[in-house]
């Protein structure tokens, strides 16, 4: 798979690119929307603030282009951290008097992104560190070869709640169940950072690159 990493102005690109290089995959840094054509799969990184990321996606023409590539041409897509949250219908991060409904996302997987506190979590937020990921189908797919309960690295304050339970691929527990990974067709996402989750994360990235998507 020719993997493209989308550079839309935000994100820990360095880590993702380096991780892919370590896996002996020559990643393509996609800096313009039209460059997505030359890829067989896409990774959408994301760190930080949903509203900012969403805005940059819109401004760069990425939202439109992703609609075509991913929903139109069914190109596999892996969203990481905020990149996963961007797959949602909207996020309450950045919601205020001007935007009480929050900020719209790409809408590829219906559902909302809410603050962990709003989801009933009473533990310290942000959720930062290593946590066990469960309920994943371990044969084939994103979590192939990764046992149930493997730790991955999380660092976030908001979590994605897909409307359709079937879109939830894996969860973790942080006082309340927190979506760890999602999948709908060839679109998937992880709340945790596979590029920072050591060998388990590398295995997941390889699964995405090599396997039938997700």
């Amino acid at each position, binding site marked *: 798979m020719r993997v493209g990493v989308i550079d839309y102005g935000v994100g820990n690109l360095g880590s993702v690119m380096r991780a892919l290089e370590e896996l002996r995959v020559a990643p393509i840094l996609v800096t313009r929307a039209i460059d997505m054509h030359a890829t067989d799969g896409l990774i959408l990184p994301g760190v930080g603030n949903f509203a900012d990321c969403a805005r940059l996606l819109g401004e760069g023409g990425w939202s439109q282009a992703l609609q075509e590539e991913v929903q139109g041409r069914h190109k596999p897509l892996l969203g990481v951290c905020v990149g996963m949250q961007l797959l949602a219908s909207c996020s309450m991060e950045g919601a205020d008097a001007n935007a009480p409904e929050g900020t719209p996302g790409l809408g590829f997987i219906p559902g909302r992104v809410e603050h962990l506190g709003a989801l009933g979590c009473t533990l*310290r937020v942000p959720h930062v560190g290593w946590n066990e990921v469960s309920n994943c189908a371990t044969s084939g797919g994103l979590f192939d070869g990764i046992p149930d309960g493997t730790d991955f690295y999380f660092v976030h304050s908001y979590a994605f709640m897909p409307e359709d339970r079937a879109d939830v691929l894996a969860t973790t527990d942080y006082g309340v169940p927190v979506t760890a990974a999602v999948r709908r067709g060839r679109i998937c996402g992880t709340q945790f950072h596979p590029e920072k989750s050591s060998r388990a994360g590398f295995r997941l990235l390889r699964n995405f690159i090599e396997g039938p998507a997700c």
Partner: protein
Amino acid sequence: MLKVRVIPTLLWKQFGLVKGIGFDSWRRVGPVLPAIKVYNQREVDELVLVDIVAHRSDDELDFESIDEFGQDCFVPLTVGGGITRIEQVQRLLRAGADKVSVNTAAYSRPELVSDIAKRHGAQCVVASIDVRKNPNGGGWQCFSRAGQHPTGREVREWAREIEGRGAGEILITSIERDGTLQGYDLALIEAVVNAVKIPVIASGGAGNYQHMIDAVKNAGASAVAAASIFHFTEQTPAGAKAAMQAAGIPVRQNFIGSVKN
């Protein structure tokens, strides 16, 4: 459930790593890169790299070196030292940092923390606080500029303020204990843990695994950071986690499957 993290800290001064006692850090230990590689190979939970002299000048941060270190670092990395502007944060994230640590600049411009939190998320900002015990009465006084400059702030009050500004975590360091291998200042850790609702990372003084267990079980730290114990004794982060596990503290297990199909 969320695991407790064991975080080696690297103190970086110009040409290489240094070790200090009570923040008197003259002693050069060796170059930074081998240390990053060793800890990376050991798959530590996280790594903290602090440039302890960056605050001294207005020179730009050493992004070039950080780029290089980022090349060999696949564990979550927090970079700190001399961060005064939000543009630096973006640059650091691009170089491979996952989080940034802010200390001195926050005292004169706490809005820096809010700005970073708004743009990059609270989880990206670690507020690093260095303190010394108050000579008269209780409490601890906060110091900026690598422990040189008294700020007049008391730690609990400052921790709450910086939490309010949007910091995602607090890295709390006892200056007196730092480098002594005599144990964390548990009263300090506990005070900060009780003052805020965000995760607190204990730092300064770890000399053996029991110190780390105490910081978590008795003082409520979410993570323990340490430098001297790992660089200068035969104890290792893996050993620390094994000891913590035996004491009933949840710690991360290393993945034993294969990466390649």
